[in-house]
């Protein structure tokens, strides 16, 4: 599973990070404002609360693992890689290579700059495709279409892999931006939850006073 995710330049990890935070966000809302939604009140035990909070990410994690397991098929066949989405004006200075720790099969035809045909002989279908330019130290990124044909669970598997080999990926900046999105949303909901608890307590005490 980890092998399947490794060559994807850490972007899937950022996706996973955001999904887990989103799940925690929804879990927090349901936990704090459960009575607004007519949900039963939770026990005050921290164990129950932690279990509840971890439930949503757990469900999503299980779904993710199921999807990843499903995609890790027993594969045998051949396929080809096409540089489809990169502008034609840049294509001439690129070479297409299959590279990485988990390269699938072996190249059976050389690249003509547009496509590379390869043979799949492994169970893993992870493919790492790198486009390189003639500018030293600078790799270009783009979108690459990968086609596989052969004995797969489906007749023709297609997926697009985003490519980037730019040394300064700036993933830290990307993580910061999305982190701040969640910090602001969580901060706002925490502010609301405090306000809500305060109002609920006042309303409860008003009801008690009027009953007296």
């Amino acid at each position: 599973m980890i092998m399947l995710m490794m060559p994807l330049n850490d972007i899937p990890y950022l996706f996973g990070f955001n999904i887990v935070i989103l799940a925690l966000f929804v879990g927090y809302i349901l936990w704090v404002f459960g009575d607004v939604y007519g949900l039963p009140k939770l026990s005050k035990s921290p164990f129950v609360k932690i279990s509840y909070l971890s439930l949503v990410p757990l469900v999503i994690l299980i779904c993710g693992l199921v999807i990843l397991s499903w995609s890790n098929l027993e594969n045998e066949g051949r396929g080809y890689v096409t540089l489809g989405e990169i502008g034609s004006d840049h294509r001439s200075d690129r070479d297409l290579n299959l590279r990485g720790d988990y390269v699938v099969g072996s190249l059976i035809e050389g690249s003509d700059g547009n496509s590379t045909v390869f043979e799949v002989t492994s169970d893993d279908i992870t493919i790492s495709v790198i486009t390189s330019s003639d500018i030293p130290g600078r790799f270009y990124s783009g979108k690459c279409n990968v086609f596989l044909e052969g004995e797969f669970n489906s007749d023709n598997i297609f997926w697009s892999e985003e490519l980037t080999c730019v040394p300064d990926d700036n993933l830290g900046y990307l993580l910061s931006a999305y982190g701040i999105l969640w910090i602001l949303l969580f901060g706002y909901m925490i502010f609301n939850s405090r306000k809500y608890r305060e109002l609920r307590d006042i309303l409860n005490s008003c009801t008690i006073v009027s009953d007296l």
Partner: protein
Amino acid sequence: MRILLLFVVAILLSIDMFLIFMWAPTEVHMGHVQRIFYIHVPSAWIAFLAFGLVFLGSIQYLRTREQKWDNFASASAELGVIFTTLVLVTGPIWAKPVWGIWWTWDVRLTTTLVLWLIYVSYLMVRSYSDNHYQASRYSAVLGIIGVINLPLVYFAVNWWNTQHQRLVLGIGSTEAGLDPDMRTTLYFSLLAFSSLFVWLLWFRVFLKKTEDMVRENTRLGTDQ
């Protein structure tokens, strides 16, 4: 129904995250950091939308003096602050690796900062006044006057030579150069963020109604 809306928002945001990180192509020159675009632009859209609602709510409040319009406008203003802050923070985070600077006194950036200041002023007017009704009136006036800034923010990139990217969608935009997959992801992000905004707005208005109930109960208690 309420819980359904929350789950719809959660599902839309999950799909949006998938599109942003796993489906949208990586920009050739900027690399992965360009994916900030998919939260930066929708946040800016929500900042505009929220101020439009503040404007409408303020007009309606001054016309009818019904509390629900004031609640609506002030809830929109709070969310406007959140999303304008997001624009002002994600913008520099994106600018640093691409432009090489965190901030420049470019017209688009400056007018967006002014928008944020108007939002904050709107909320400060409300919080610093002892009289609730007076605060509502003053903030409604500010909500109406402040809308003048919106076209300045929006058209700044077309009216002046700015360092900021020109409009990629909406009136006066040139969509050339935006990859179709990127455009699809952007449109989906706009949908997901709009649904999040609608949910947050509904929730905040609900809390404000509860606040009104408490105020009413407290006033009745004091009268008795």
